[in-house]
């Protein structure tokens, strides 16, 4: 779906921290949305972390950096990191180039599937995001 010029794939879930989530059954894949990436600018560092680390819902577990700004990455669910995108250690710009594909951040095993109910599909995301986009575009005008 195109929301005011920003791309949000229909098959993904989203949170209000501007991350996308792909439900793969036993685990999720987490990444940053087109809107978040374009707001941030070019990424220069990603602290990718290690598989095996346990994460908690709404807790920060990794960080990214663009233009001297450190962004914190929060887990949308309780679980365990089963894979990190190691390419980002030396090619953080993959997040900018393909945020829904090669620029994925981590894969997290799902401990409690009910937590996915807190996430939004693209239709639920739209009205909230339109306000955020209005604010950005309002600044640009």
């Amino acid at each position, binding site marked *: 779906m195109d929301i005011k010029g920003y791309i949000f794939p229909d098959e993904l879930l989203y949170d209000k921290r501007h991350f996308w989530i792909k439900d793969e059954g036993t685990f999720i894949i987490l990444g940053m949305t087109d809107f978040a990436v374009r707001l941030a600018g*070019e990424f220069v560092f990603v602290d990718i972390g290690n598989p095996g680390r346990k994460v908690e819902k709404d807790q920060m577990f990794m960080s990214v*950096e663009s*233009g*001297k*700004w*450190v*962004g914190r990455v929060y887990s949308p669910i309780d679980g365990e990191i089963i894979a990190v995108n190691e390419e980002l250690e*030396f090619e953080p710009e993959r997040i900018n180039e393909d945020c829904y594909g090669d620029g994925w951040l981590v894969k997290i095993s799902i401990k409690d599937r009910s937590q996915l109910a807190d996430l939004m599909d693209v239709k639920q995301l739209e009205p909230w995001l339109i306000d955020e986009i209005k604010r950005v575009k309002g*600044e640009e005008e």
Partner: protein
Amino acid sequence: MDTWRLLDTGVLTAAENMALDEAILRAKSNNCVPNTLRFLQFSPPCVLVGHHQMVEQEVRIDYCKNNFIDINRRITGGGALYWDETQLGWEIFASKDHPGIPLKIEDLYKKMCEAVCYALNSLGVNARYRFRNDIEVNKRKISGTGGTELGNAFMFQGTLLIDFDVDVMLKALRIPVEKLKDKEIQSIKERVTCLKWELGYVPPLDEIKSAIVHGFSRILGVSFIQQPLSSVERKLFTEVLPEFQSMDWIEKIKYSHFKHQELRNLYKAKGGLIRVSLVMDSLLKRINSILITGDFFVYPRNAIFDLECILKNSPAQYNHISTVVTDFFKANSVSAPGLSEADFIKAIWDAVKKIDMLKEGIHPSAVNSIFTVGDDFINISKPSVLLLPYCGKRPDCDYRKKEGCNECGQCSIGDAFQLARKYGLRPITIQNYEMLEKTLWQLKKEKIDSFIGSCCEAFYAKHKDDFERIGLTGILIDVDNTTCYDLGKIIEAKLGVFENQTFLNNSLIEQVLALKVNASSNVRNINNGKSEEQI
């Protein structure tokens, strides 16, 4: 008018200041405290690396340890900074959804920096915001910035250089300047400034703080009231302080291998010498940062600083570098007597191409100890002679002023003679510049493929164009220790009467010999045709 808190936490250690950053940010994200402007200072002096930097790569740890300089890590991004007791830090903690706060990070930076520029202007300093997070005065950096966020709160911080000790900064940080010589220190001084250099004196600290408060008040449309830390923040501070004092925090970032490579190059043209020092990411795709110094004049005077800024984080591709430099020269009507933009492009590209050496197995730390004449390293092969400086022999050696060596083992020249024998090269000791020139012309007559030699970087810089005029290709390896140039004995050396001793880097000489003696040229020439575009 909205009222914010003015918080002055005074002089604290690095760990305490970093812990307070985290505590205040957490309290703000939980809406426990008002939006805040904080002032901070450091004692003892410290180096703070950016959140994602590796300490070993950015800091001269031994120097800091020996000089009681703390090392710590920020929660914000950016590069490593040296803080002493005279500098002032300023920080904004606020809600992201405050009406005066831009959502786009770039715009937020601009607004915050404009507040500080307003303050500096009121102090009589002509400051302006420079894209990519700096505040500059006549193109010289006076304040660096960075930020982070937590939930709905953000923190934006900056330094203000009040009275600055460049020498200590260069010794504490790993900045790509060659051997910390006077010229390089001077080139760094040209790129930074502080209140004292701009005003000729240091205004009282209260006056500086008051100006900054007024600047934020004006730009954000808020007023400030002085208030202390809250009990929530003090509690959080106590909880997190141990983490910020721990080596786990300070050494948090360890990349699988060094994240970047320093590359240096000298380029000579009619208009002078261009020295390029650049830092490339370890995948060797981007120029992380670049310093362009040397003996040349350029107008407008500080145009090179802007060019360095534009080249920061740009792709290490010939076409890109060429376009950026050409467009920059045109857009800014840059002129440099005796030099064209083509010279600058070549100087930069020649530095980038030094990564070829890594691909041939030269250790990253040795790359800048190798200079080439007449061609790129990768193309030079089959050396026939090993040229050695007479100053590598002991001052009391019988062979100091004549050809030959009895390989007594008392200097590095004897070992070099053994290497020459091992690899089938003819060793020639060069007594003075006249002999060098004569020797090279003779070797050219003999139609040798190339030579290997050893000389100091200063000699190479001085005579690079002489080498190229003669037209032989060769590889020169830097000498260790104090040279005639360091001691101001150039004339003596030219005449062959310099009385100090230098030391050859024989292990590097051997590595180069091993690579080149049986190699054929163009085996891995990645600079043919299209591959010139990107390494």
